[in-house]
Structures are given as structure tokens and as C-alpha cells.
């Protein structure tokens, strides 16, 4: 066995690096304490009869796309990839609304620009959960600050409580300033072009 290892090492000098990388890659997956059993969660009464009946977090969550924070589940990926299909409504008459528009925020801060994706938020939430009492619909009309967010206001109402926590800076601050400015310029140009096209197609008032 030893001889085989030495032989391998001589022929593949990078093998030990590869093994180390593999071990690192496997280690988090093998870490057993991702989800505490309910009886150890510090909340349930060990004498509660519910403990025998309730689903254990590990049983439900270990089958979903893994994450390093929060519930250790990539909830949006779980939804997008069809691992889960949670109900959108209980009443048949409820209008289920979705909206697909990324909004670039914090254009002049010191961190990378925030890309707020409406799509993934409306997969889970209704427009009225955020508009207009937390965030006005009009761009720039609501001053958003990390101070408020860290206090559990604005984005922090969910992020840091049930949605991925505030330790994951780059998941929101994800877009370089250069790319963001270019994207906004492109959008403005497209909007101007569309407006011009609409203008041309309309018969001019008074023109005969």
C-alpha cells in the first residue's frame, strides 16, 4: 500500500494537493451537525409528546440544495430546480402575482452595487408584503441603509430572520459599479429608442 502511494506520488507530484483539496471538499458534507435534532434545539420541552411525531430538520433539509448559512438550504434553488413546490395560495380567488425586473440599488456606495431581483422575491412573496409601506415603488424614493437593515427593518425584516443572513454581503452587493452603470445606460438608451419609435409611429397632431 505504502509502495503504491510512493509510486503514485513520484508519478503524480500534485497528487497530495489533489487529495487535500478532495478532503476539504468532502469535509463540510461529512460534518454531521448541520441540523440539530429537535430534542437538542433548546426550544422544545424534552418531555413534549410532539418530539416523537414532528419531522426532524435533517430529514427534510438534507435532501435540498446545500448552503453554508441560515437553514443551510439554497431555498431559491430548491424552488427553481423543483425540489420543492410550495403552495402559492389557499383561496382559489387569490391573485398570485410575480414580477421579473432586477433593480440596481446603492449606486454610489463603497460596496459593489446591489442587484435586487424581483423574480425570486415574488416567487415567495406578494407585492404588498413590501410595497408601499416598506419600500415605495418609485426608484430612489425610499432611503435604504445598512443601519436600518441591521436593526431588522427594511430588507432586515426577513434577511437575518428567515431569509439568508446579513453575513452574506456579496449575495446582494453583487454587481460591479462599472457593469451597473453600463446596464443603466443601456436601459436608458433602449427606453429613449422605444419612446422615439412610439413618437414616429403616432401621427403628428396638426400635420396634414
Amino acid at each position, binding site marked *: 500500500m505504502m509502495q503504491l502511494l510512493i509510486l503514485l506520488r513520484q508519478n503524480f507530484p500534485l497528487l497530495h494537493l489533489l487529495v487535500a483539496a478532495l478532503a476539504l471538499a468532502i469535509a463540510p458534507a461529512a460534518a454531521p451537525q448541520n*441540523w*440539530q435534532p429537535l430534542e*437538542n*434545539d*433548546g*426550544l*422544545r*420541552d424534552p418531555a*413534549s*409528546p*410532539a*418530539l416523537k*411525531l*414532528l*419531522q426532524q*430538520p435533517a430529514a*427534510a*433539509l438534507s435532501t435540498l440544495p446545500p448552503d453554508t448559512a*441560515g*437553514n443551510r*438550504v439554497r*431555498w431559491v434553488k430548491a424552488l427553481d430546480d423543483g425540489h*420543492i413546490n*410550495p*403552495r*402559492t*395560495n*389557499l*383561496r382559489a380567488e*387569490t391573485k*398570485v402575482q410575480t414580477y421579473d425586473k432586477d433593480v440596481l440599488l446603492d449606486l454610489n456606495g463603497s460596496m459593489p452595487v446591489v442587484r435586487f431581483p424581483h423574480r425570486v422575491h415574488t*416567487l*415567495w*412573496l*406578494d407585492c*404588498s*408584503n413590501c410595497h408601499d409601506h416598506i419600500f415605495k415603488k418609485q426608484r430612489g424614493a425610499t432611503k435604504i441603509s445598512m443601519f436600518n437593515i*441591521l*436593526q*431588522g427593518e427594511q430588507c*432586515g*425584516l*426577513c434577511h*437575518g*430572520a*428567515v431569509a439568508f*443572513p*446579513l*453575513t452574506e454581503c456579496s449575495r446582494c452587493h453583487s454587481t460591479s459599479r462599472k457593469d451597473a452603470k453600463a446596464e443603466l445606460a443601456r436601459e436608458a438608451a433602449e427606453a429613449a429608442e422605444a419612446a422615439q419609435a412610439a413618437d414616429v409611429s403616432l401621427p403628428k397632431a396638426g400635420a396634414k
Partner: protein
Amino acid sequence: MSRFGTGAVVCAKVARWLAAVLFGATLGLATLPANAEYGDVVLNRASEKEGMRPVIFPHWFHRIRFRCKVCHFELGFKMRAGANEVKMNDIIEGRFCGMCHNGEIAWAPENCDLCHSGKRGLPPGIFGGHETNGPGRW
């Protein structure tokens, strides 16, 4: 001069990196849960006064089966732990939890112990994450 300048930049970079690492470590320690799963909510405004164990509401279990909007839009749960006054009467009459916990979609309210399963003396609030019903723990 330029060499000195580069040194200062590198120093600043290292300092910033160290600060970030320390900040991250502090966050990690401050948010180490008492083993509660992220987003677990304890409801105990009325439970113990009425002689029942506190209610533990696991967000993780519910969001596998329902999108946030079902409870926070259709059922009218406000999005802040402690902002909802939920009484057993509401539930029995089909409001709040009672919209599903009616023996059809989920277990009926007579299975008291399945929800009222918490340790005595737990304060109401959200666990496993940061506090969101008041100033944070930062």
C-alpha cells in the same frame, strides 16, 4: 516615496482584511443559535398564562410546503415576530393558523401538544437568526 505609498496601501489592505475577518468572526459568535433552527419562532404571550407549553413555529417546515405569501399575505400574518396577536379562538374559527390547521390541510387544533411543544419560560421571539423584533444584537 512611491515605495512608501505602496507599503501604506498594502498595510491598509491587510488592516481592512483583518477587520473584515474579525467582524465576520464576531457575527458568527453572536449569532450562534441555542441550536434552534434558523427562523424558529416562539409564541408565548398567552400560552403559559393559560397553562400550556409555548408554541414553536418552525419556518423551515412551513416554507417547504407553502410560500411566504400564503401566510403573510392571504392569512394576514404581519412580518415581525411578536406583531401578531394570535388566540386559540382565532385558530378554531379558521383564522391565522386555523386556515390550514383544521384537520384537512394540516392537523386540527385539538392536537394541542404538537404546536404547544416548547420549554416553559421561553420568551416570545424569533430564534436561530438575529433578533428582528427590536434592535439587533450587533
